[in-house]
């Protein structure tokens, strides 16, 4: 029943946000709704940690350990982003424009609803629709600031991901065709798994490639990533955190779920494609990181890199690598949200997205600077962060498997990305604060001294703290039920223990 409540709470929060009851009503409803969703998701995820399944409507709404994990992450990022939105939107939207604020929160809740539906639905055709609704319901959030750049980003986002949607659709329909060889099999993840031995290999393989390319467009795999840095940098920061932190991962979840359908799992063709796409994404993104001039784009490219790492881990095969992939999914989600919240705080303090314009952030806004530095270090994979632990376990698993070439390349790309991220962030955080770039577009220098120190709103700090805790804590200590959940989710990918 929790699953139905989650969807109901989400949809009622979206409707209630539209009621004009003062400036604080919509954010309040959103935060309360997302708190309830988070608690319900936590309950669901813990119930699946033992390896069981939570079923609300058989063959339509159900959660196993892997989808429970994704559900929990969506709810967590949603809650943190709701807190962050509260301060961010109140600061950036004009004091008189209450309607814009209500529309923002309503769309925010609808966007989260579609994202929660991705792991909750188990019927594949509905999963496809949920994935595509995440695009359509977030297009106007990406274009929220209504600048020409934001609208351009929204256009690219909508057009490219809808193209991907149609490609994935034919893949899903092919899978449904393959299912007709097995009478009475439901068109769900579990039904597919039981029917896959009877499908023709050519059909399974073609369907897989269509879905990999189609959903890969939305997950930001190179070379279909071109929309991602635009959309993930132009959207308001709390939306960036959701887009980058969890939307990409939730789509990748749909791709990774196809892996056990192949006989031999990761050792089959599917695993090879994962490794190839993963290495290309990680490599290209690592080198593009170095040349970015916009710190939100920097984090967006880092997302492409992390998607690559997760795919490589899933494609390496073996239980240890799959467990690494699950840990990477968790650590990327929490850490990337932290990074975008820190970037949003920086944007509020300085008013520019340009890396070259910001020097000595630590003197302008110490809170933003500290979180940006810690977030940058964590996402780059410095110990003792959660990303360090997950990347380390992936590399270790690969070495034990004997895949030295793949691991060598992956380690090299991670190193390049570390250098790229830290070089840019160091330049922003430290140095003298009295020169800032005045105009983002014309790149003209002007001298300005920010007189007073800038403190971000309290709810923004709260969002930063609640994402910072797991981003560091999970590098040192994983709570036992949570470890069980990761364990069961990794076991679902079909690696032997």
């Amino acid at each position, binding site marked *: 029943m929790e699953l139905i409540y989650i969807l109901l709470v989400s949809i009622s929060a979206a409707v209630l946000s539209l009621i004009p009851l003062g400036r604080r009503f919509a954010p309040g409803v959103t935060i309360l709704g997302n708190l309830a969703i988070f608690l319900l998701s936590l309950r669901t995820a813990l119930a699946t940690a033992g390896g069981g399944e939570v079923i609300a409507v058989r063959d339509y709404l159900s959660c196993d350990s892997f989808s429970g994990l994704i559900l929990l992450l969506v709810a967590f990022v949603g809650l943190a982003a709701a807190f962050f939105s509260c301060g961010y939107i109140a600061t950036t939207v004009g004091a008189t424009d209450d309607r814009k604020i209500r529309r923002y929160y309503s769309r925010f809740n609808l966007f989260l609803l579609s994202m929660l539906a991705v792991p909750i639905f188990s*019927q594949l*055709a*509905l999963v496809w*629709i949920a994935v*595509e*609704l995440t695009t*359509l319901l977030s*297009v*106007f959030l990406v*274009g929220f600031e*209504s600048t*020409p*750049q934001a*609208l*351009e*980003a*929204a*256009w*690219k986002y*909508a*057009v490219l991901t*809808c*193209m991907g949607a*149609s*490609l994935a*659709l*034919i893949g899903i*329909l*092919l899978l*449904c*065709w393959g299912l*007709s060889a097995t009478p009475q099999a439901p*068109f769900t993840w579990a039904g597919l798994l039981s029917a896959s031995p009877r499908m*023709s290999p*050519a*059909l399974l393989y*073609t369907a897989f490639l269509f879905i990999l390319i189609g959903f890969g467009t939305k997950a930001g795999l190179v070379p279909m990533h071109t929309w991602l*840095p*635009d959309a993930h*940098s*132009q959207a308001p920061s709390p939306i960036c955190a959701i887009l980058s932190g969890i939307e990409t991962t939730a789509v990748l979840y749909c791709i990774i779920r196809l892996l056990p359908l192949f006989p031999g799992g990761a050792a089959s063709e599917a695993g090879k494609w994962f490794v190839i796409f993963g290495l290309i994404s990680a490599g290209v993104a690592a080198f*593009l990181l170095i*040349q*970015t*001039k916009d710190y939100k784009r920097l984090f967006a490219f880092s997302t492409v890199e992390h998607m690559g790492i997760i795919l490589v881990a899933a494609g390496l095969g073996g239980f240890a690598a799959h467990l690494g992939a699950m840990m990477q999914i968790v650590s990327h989600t929490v850490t990337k949200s932290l990074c975008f919240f820190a970037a949003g705080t920086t944007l509020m303090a300085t008013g520019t997205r340009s890396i070259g314009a910001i020097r000595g952030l630590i003197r302008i806004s110490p809170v933003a600077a500290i979180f940006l530095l810690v977030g940058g270090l964590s996402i780059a994979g410095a110990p003792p962060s959660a990303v360090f632990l997950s990347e380390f376990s992936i590399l270790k698993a690969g070495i034990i498997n004997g895949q030295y070439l793949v691991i060598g390349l992956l380690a090299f790309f991670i190193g390049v990305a570390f250098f790229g991220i830290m070089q840019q962030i160091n330049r922003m955080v430290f140095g003298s604060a009295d020169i800032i770039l005045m105009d983002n577009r014309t790149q003209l220098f002007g001298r300005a001294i920010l007189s007073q120190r800038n403190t971000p709103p309290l709810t923004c700090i709260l969002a930063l703290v609640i994402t910072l805790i797991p981003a560091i804590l999970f590098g040192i200590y994983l709570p036992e039920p949570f470890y069980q959940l990761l364990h069961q989710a990794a076991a679902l990918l079909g690696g032997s223990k």
Partner: protein
Amino acid sequence: MSPDLLVSFLTKLNALTGGVFLLCAFGLVGIRQMLTCLRIYVCQSLLLAISAVILGYYHASIHLFVVAALTIVTKVFIIPWVLRQAVGYESYAKREISQAINIPTSLLIAVVIAIFSYYIASPLLTAGAGVLEKVNLPIGMASLLIGAYTVTVRGEAVPQLLGILAMENGAFFAGISIAPNLPLIAELAAAFYVLITVLVIGLLAMRIHKMIAKTAVGELMALREE
């Protein structure tokens, strides 16, 4: 009419529908007049509905009749109406002059794409596949991939959106033959989804039109890597 004769007639009718359907996909690549592009899309959707009716009769499946009805309501009536409302009439009267690749070359590339889709569909059409699948699957894939090509070469908002919708039509054209027993809720949700796509992208095009006074989205190049 004897049953055999009827089946053979339906098969031929379906093949004819498929052929014209593919021709419509080519039309979207090659035709510059935006209003004509929209009419071609409506025509293609109508052919999708006809094919669904033929297949529905053949499989005796009520689902496919529902699909046909939904297709006609949404794609023949509502979508063209929404698109005309969203983007001003002057945009439709215009001809799109600048394309990334000129039209004869584009059409040649589209032919290559069509051959390629027959190539990828052939290993799937093993002995078990029916005669209707053999028509619908490769033509659906061809329309899908040609639609993707249309989106990449056209620089105006409306033809790009029509390219996406043609991709969707292609996927459904293949889908009605290979997955006729998809649950009804999925069919309903898919029709709803197509409508939202048009609404969202149409509204976005309208806002871009307000902002830069034209809908040449291909000229939006502010965001890119230096």
